[in-house]
């Protein structure tokens, strides 16, 4: 099968490419960022998904499936730019997929869609509305892109659309929100005094396994995807060789970015106060997915790849 991967140049994209090539698929990658060391068998196009050149790739290739990973999830980018990439990019992917052969589209979303709120249930089901926006307006574009992708299910039923909401990843790549947070401040990881939310993470290889399964099973719908059970943040911090550094909420914004602690946006504060945990039973039932890497192994691997650095 011909699989097109917009946003291929991420750490996760590279893993997905390898997995797809191993299975004998034709893989075509699109990204405006350079890919890094070349991978044999990958057809690469260094173009912006929103530009005409990207449409030409769809037109020529007529892919059987598209794994849309071209969303900006980290918060470093200016929000205007993020809005354009995440929304216009997502729209372009669906427009082209429809125009050139009705490919199966997998939208790779995030579990942060649900938001971290004090009064929400611990396990979020797919039918819950996004509560993130009030607490974390910076995530609005990602939430909108996710909802937009979901509308394809009824607006274009001729297209098979799969929206996957993944939990955090943790492993030897050190990429992703949780890994960046843990790596940010040397051996001390800031926490809010008196709060210790559950965090849910899966290994990148399991995330790739889930995407490949979703391609095979071609299930339409919105699915939460997670791996092992969630565990408290303080436990993750300790098991990855670091030390929790609890700070009273009143002082929090004053000390972040100083004393060797990482910076954190105000909205992100909610995510170290309250948990975002997803119920992934529907995905497991629909695809038969099981994770291979346990929470202990994922943490050990991360710890080996990124031992905590002593300050000084």
């Amino acid at each position: 099968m011909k699989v097109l991967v917009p946003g291929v140049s991420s750490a996760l994209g590279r893993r997905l490419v390898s997995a797809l090539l191993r299975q004998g698929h034709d893989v075509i990658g699109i990204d405006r960022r350079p890919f890094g060391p070349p991978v044999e068998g990958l057809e690469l196009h260094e173009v912006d998904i929103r530009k005409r050149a990207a449409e030409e790739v769809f037109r020529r290739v007529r892919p059987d499936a598209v794994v849309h990973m071209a969303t900006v999830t980290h918060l470093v980018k200016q929000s205007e730019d993020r809005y354009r990439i995440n929304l216009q990019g997502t729209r372009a992917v669906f427009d082209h997929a429809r125009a050139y052969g009705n490919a199966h589209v997998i939208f790779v979303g995030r579990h942060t869609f649900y938001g971290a709120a004090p009064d929400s249930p611990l396990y979020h089901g797919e039918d819950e509305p996004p509560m993130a926006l009030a607490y974390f307006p910076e995530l609005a574009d990602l939430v909108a892109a996710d909802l937009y992708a979901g509308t394809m299910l009824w607006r274009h039923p001729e297209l098979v659309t799969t929206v996957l909401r993944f939990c955090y990843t943790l492993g030897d790549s050190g990429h992703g929100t949780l890994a960046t947070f843990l790596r940010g401040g040397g051996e001390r990881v800031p926490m809010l005094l008196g709060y210790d939310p559950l965090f849910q993470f899966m290994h990148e290889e399991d995330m790739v396994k889930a995407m490949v399964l979703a391609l095979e099973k071609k299930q339409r719908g919105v699915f939460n995807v997670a791996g092992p059970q969630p565990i408290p943040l303080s436990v993750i911090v300790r098991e990855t060789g670091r030390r929790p550094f609890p700070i009273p909420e009143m002082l929090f914004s004053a000390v972040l970015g100083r004393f060797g602690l990482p910076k954190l946006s105000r909205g992100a504060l909610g995510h170290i106060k309250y948990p975002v945990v997803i119920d992934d039973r529907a995905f497991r039932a629909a695809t038969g997915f099981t994770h291979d890497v346990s929470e202990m192994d994922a943490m050990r691997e991360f710890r080996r790849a990124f031992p905590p650095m002593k300050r000084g």
Partner: protein
Amino acid sequence: MFDREIRDRVDRLELPWNELGVDPYGVSKEHLTVFFKLLYPLYRHYFSVEARGISNVPKRGRTMLIGNHSGGIAIDGAMVIASMLLEMDPPRLAQGMVEKFLNQVPFASSWSNRTGQFTGLPEHAIRLLEDERLLMIFPEGARGTAKLYGERYSLVAFGTGFMRLALRTKTPIVPLAFLGGGDAVPTIANSAWLGKLFGAPYVPITPYGFALPLPVKLEVVYGEPMVFEGTGSEEDVVITGYVERVKAEIARMLDEGRHRRRAGSTFAGGAK
């Protein structure tokens, strides 16, 4: 020492622990052990809690404990949780449905979550019951903890949510009567102003000022399981009828207990 007994009982809880002693809800063996070490002296000595009818609580499988509130602070819930761990064989973890505000209070937030006491949301209740857990619900809610000294053996209106959940998940209900909390915390008024200070709905005031509980003998009585048939989508009038039957049973158990207490001594040390 009771340390070993508690560790042993926490180990024998039939919950799906991972390698780190954490279950899928974030309940942690380590936190439970600390929590029960604090509760043990209160349960065994300070309040000398007497638990009756323990054999009425199923050893395994989804179960709802439905009880009356007794005492202005959560000693009733805490003592029920302690009795399920200390008196049952194998021990069970009773999981309460707590007020929303608690999750926003530092430390209360992390400790309630690590010991399995979650915000009272229907989603939580359904999921826990489907996972065959033991749920503890006080349908009087915050109105129930606000009872004054003179009202200590009475019941206020019951919420009906628990009955719909029990019907929907086909869960047996074990009624429980909690006695003595009103003597331990003889509330003369509830201060909303002080409550605001602590982020709670109110703080009970006693004749001696703050709500420090007195060393009164407490009693918890578990009644025979009640099973109701239905789907949970019945009309209010049907549901209210079922709820009234549970409430009447608890009122009967309270009345019985009250007469028993009157015959004996109220204070643990026989001071009265």
